[in-house]
């Protein structure tokens, strides 16, 4: 009999599905907010409208997608079941409500009256998630470097959220003398690099070689990447607090960059040894996202090396470009790609696992429109091209065009996600059987 399969520990689809749906809606809302506040990109990067957009992107879209994907992948990475599916379901609803509350608070710019409450709710929801992952790790039968990436990612998430919560509470209670923008930097480093980069890297170490079908990879590269990234992040956060010297910051950023380079070398190893020579749309997004990762790396170095640039409009544009290249160039590109890789399989397994072999069943990639995914891909590349040009030229019309492109991308993405969710397996099988019968006659 089939034994020791990771599918034995797979979570129920009802635990995973809502995350993908919420993320798709979050992506659409993000598109709408960006069109509505296209002019917000020309103001200070910490203006409340941009903060609402940023949090819709990182929480409503990316975080939800990561939650859903990770619940599905825990059995694969940890070789154990998720600690509590009930907690995961509760966390979903709690997180969904908290995200809506937090984004609304930023949107209206109510930092004193609402933000402390919204941040507290957000903190609790993320805490439930972190707890569930840490308890799953405790039961893990595999505790390798891939699992360590996941564990340290959730640790940094907790740190980022603790800092976010303290900053939000400080708006109301003023218990420490703080420059909020400085805290925004460390919050962003721990959240964007510590959580998102680390988590994407961790999940990527399993998914990318699996989808490229490559074996015998050099795992030493991953070890180096892991320790360099964590040392760099910890050093950077501590130096920002204790000794915000430009040289020290540069040293720790360089350590982070070295960690990124080792990771990219690992992926390059996987790419070279891949069996699947042709990349489908999902893997095209994924590979490009890793190329795009070079942009925030370069921009962060420029920001550190620019002499006395802090506060100037020039530095603000670079800072904005840095954030955008990270969120849209890397995170969103890889998220779009991996949705087209993981979601079709999740839906396919739900609808066809018991039917394969009995009837003619579609391939997972046939559950969505590849044509729509292809158009979406090229429009998204245009968005990525137009946005930095609009910012550098300070051209509001071009920025509006870029955000409209983004909105179209989000509509196309939603079309495919909903198409998968509403796929009717019975109808498909009846249609195929009739076609086969017709061909036979």
């Amino acid at each position, binding site marked *: *009999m089939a034994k020791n399969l*990771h*599918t034995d520990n797979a979570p129920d689809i009802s635990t995973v599905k809502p995350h993908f749906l919420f993320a798709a809606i979050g992506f659409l809302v993000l598109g709408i907010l960006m069109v509505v506040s296209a002019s917000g990109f020309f103001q200070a990067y910490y203006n409340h409208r941009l903060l609402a957009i940023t949090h819709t992107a990182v929480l409503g879209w990316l975080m939800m997608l990561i939650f859903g994907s990770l619940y599905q992948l825990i059995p694969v*990475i940890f070789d154990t079941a998720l600690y509590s599916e009930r907690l995961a379901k509760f966390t979903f609803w709690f997180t969904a409500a908290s995200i809506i509350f937090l984004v609304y608070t930023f949107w209206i710019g109510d930092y004193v009256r609402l933000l402390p409450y919204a941040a507290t709710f957000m903190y609790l929801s993320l805490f439930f998630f972190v707890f569930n992952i840490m308890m799953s790790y405790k039961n893990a039968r595999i505790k390798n470097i891939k699992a360590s990436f996941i564990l340290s990612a959730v640790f940094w998430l907790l740190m980022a959220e603790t800092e976010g919560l303290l900053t939000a509470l400080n708006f109301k209670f003023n218990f420490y003398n703080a420059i909020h923008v400085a805290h925004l930097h460390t919050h962003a480093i721990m959240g964007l690099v510590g959580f998102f980069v680390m988590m994407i890297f961790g999940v990527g170490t399993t998914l990318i070689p*699996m989808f490229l079908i490559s*074996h015998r990879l050099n795992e030493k590269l991953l070890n180096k990447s892991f320790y360099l990234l964590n040392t760099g992040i910890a050093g950077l956060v501590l130096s920002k607090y204790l000794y915000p010297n430009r040289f020290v910051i540069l040293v720790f950023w360089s350590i982070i960059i070295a960690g990124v380079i080792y990771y990219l070398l690992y992926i390059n190893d996987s790419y070279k040894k891949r*069996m*699947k020579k042709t990349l489908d749309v999902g893997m095209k997004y994924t590979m490009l996202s890793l190329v795009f990762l070079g942009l925030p790396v370069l921009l962060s170095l420029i920001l550190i090396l620019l002499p006395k640039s802090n506060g100037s409009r020039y530095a603000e544009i670079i800072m904005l470009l840095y954030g955008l290249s990270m969120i849209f160039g890397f995170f969103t590109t890889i998220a779009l790609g991996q949705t087209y890789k993981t979601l079709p399989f999740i839906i396919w397994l739900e609808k066809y696992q018991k039917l394969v*072999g009995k009837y003619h069943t579609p*391939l997972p990639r046939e559950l969505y429109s590849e044509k729509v995914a292809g158009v979406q891909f090229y429009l998204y590349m245009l968005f990525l091209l137009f946005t930095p040009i609009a910012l550098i030229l300070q051209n509001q019309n071009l920025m509006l065009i870029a955000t409209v492109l983004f909105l179209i991308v989000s509509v196309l993405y939603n079309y495919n996600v909903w198409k998968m969710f509403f796929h009717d397996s019975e109808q498909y099988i009846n249609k195929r059987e009739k076609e086969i019968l017709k061909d036979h006659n």
Partner: protein
Amino acid sequence: MTAIRKVENDIYELLKTVMDPEIELDIINLGLVYNILYDGDKDVRIEMTLSTPACPLGDAITDNVKNTINKKYPDFNVDVDLTFDPPWDASMISEEGRKKLGM
């Protein structure tokens, strides 16, 4: 050819219709099937592996193997024996499979 061998060959051909949904190649040409053993009565054992022990499609592939055989031989007891010794690697792909994958 003995009757047993004939059935085993037939099952071998049947398994060429069982696809790995990600790689989009059948499990025979992928080299996932190590052995097909028919006892001459109603028991069939398929010794096979997966492209990786972490393969999330493991159950779907083994269910497909059982269903495909039972569709033609409804009375057979099909036992899918998964093994990762030896672990699968790309050298196990047939020439035909390599052509299909563009390797």
